[in-house]
């Protein structure tokens, strides 16, 4: 069993463990009240409450995971395996239904690029807003803004509304903002899927440098290549279960097998 994980770690966060998930369960309701209208809800309240219980769906089942400072851990699995739920729990936007999640340090979610960009605002305005959302002070943003713009290679486009950007420019700016936030823990959800090859390479190099300098990263991807390049360790999720944890090669092989099935 490659899925053996240190379940002995019931003690508080040991040493330099920065992400600690203990037997975490997360549940969603597939047809909960938000899918029905008010009239229906009022008329069928008792049956709705009964239904709620019936159609629960466990997105994560008894998942434990420890990540140490400076590690890059790959999270692999098919669509709907629970990868994004896992990142949501670590980012602190979701709460576990059972189990415990502890995270030390500032988390920057570098997920689904361009989050919160407003199409009518300029790249510069969006960069400031985005950086503040990710936890920077405006003073810090002002200090780093030139670096952010330079890294994104947007030139004069930085003062144009974001709606005029190509998808590549959009993701370049988003990545640049997120990497300059300088968070302790980076959550990367398919971030490198966009952009041309040269810029992708630049981002990968930058990420590698950040990880070498002691940053922690969680890397969600369908593509094993990126995971292989970055991560020392990987976790395989399938239908909410942690199927395997171990070296990237081991886990990749396991992934190949469930892929066929």
């Amino acid at each position, binding site marked *: 069993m490659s899925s053996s994980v240190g379940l002995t770690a019931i003690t508080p966060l040991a040493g330099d463990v920065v992400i600690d998930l203990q037997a975490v369960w997360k549940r*969603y309701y597939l047809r909960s009240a938000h899918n029905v209208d008010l009239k229906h809800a009022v008329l069928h309240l008792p049956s709705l409450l009964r239904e709620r219980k019936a159609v629960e769906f466990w997105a994560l089942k008894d998942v434990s995971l420890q990540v140490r400072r400076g590690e890059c851990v790959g999270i692999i699995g098919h669509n709907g395996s629970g990868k994004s739920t896992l990142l949501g729990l670590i980012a602190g*936007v979701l709460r576990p239904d059972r189990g415990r999640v502890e995270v030390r340090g500032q988390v920057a979610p570098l997920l689904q690029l361009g989050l919160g960009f407003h199409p009518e605002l300029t790249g510069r305005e969006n960069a400031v807003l985005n950086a503040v959302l990710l936890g920077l002070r405006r003073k810090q943003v002002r200090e780093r803004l030139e670096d952010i713009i330079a890294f994104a290679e947007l030139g004069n486009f930085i003062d144009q509304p974001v709606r005029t950007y190509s998808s590549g420019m959009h993701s370049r700016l988003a990545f640049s903002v997120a990497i300059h936030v300088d968070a302790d823990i980076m959550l990367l959800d398919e971030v490198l899927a966009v952009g041309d090859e040269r810029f992708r390479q630049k981002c990968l190099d930058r990420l590698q440098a950040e990880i070498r300098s002691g940053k922690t990263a969680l890397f969600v991807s369908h593509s094993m290549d990126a995971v292989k390049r970055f991560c020392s360790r990987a976790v395989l999720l399938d239908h909410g279960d942690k199927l395997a944890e171990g070296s990237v090669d081991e886990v990749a092989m396991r992934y190949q097998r469930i892929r066929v099935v």
Partner: protein
Amino acid sequence: MSTALSVWQNHWELVSALVAKDLKVRYKGTMLGYLWSILHPLALTLIFNFVFKEIFKASIPDFHLFLLAALLPWTWLASSINGGAGSFVGNAHLIKKVRFPRLLIPLATVLNNMVHFLLSLPVYLAFTLAAGKLPAWNWLIGIPLLVLLELIFILGLTLAIASLNVYFRDVSHFVSVVLSLWFYVTPIMYSPSMLPPKVQLVLAFHPATHLIEAWRNLLVENRLDLETLCLPAAIAAAVMFFGLIVFKRLERGFADVL
């Protein structure tokens, strides 16, 4: 201590960044820009002034002042609620990705509309002076006090509505209908004393009445009695309390259902 302070400072910076965004976005691409937040109540006043003075021959002196003094705070309330009802749903992408106090989202909407309200006050002052009247010193205490009360009142209401709207999207539609009705049952185009005593009694139970009346007393008659502020203050506190409870109970599931 210093960490708590810096957390609050961070939240404050985030709110002001969100407010700045809303202010920039609202009039992006328009030629008149911020003038619109003044032009809108002015146009309404012109219309109502015409209807009431010329058609209904209302006998209220300086009817435009009478109207504006209530219409401006009302506009703050109505546009906050209209805009804030969908604020959690509209910012689902943020709620699902980044961790920050969700309360800041409707707060930014309410503050954004507050800025527009504050910008319209100099216009009101100009009208007052043009009508040959002078403001009194009690404006200096009264305006901040009433702004604070109204802020608490609106924020409480918006919080509850926006939270419910996450689970029942009908709420925002329902609310916009209710608001247009609410406009007529609030003493904006008339004053409660113009109504039969029975209706006055009903109106006294209506939570926004006292606040609007307090604004009109202050801005039209330069009157600020602290006793009459007790009731609106109590209502504002109660609404805020209610809003916070609804929000706290529903907030947990936001990221799950959005």
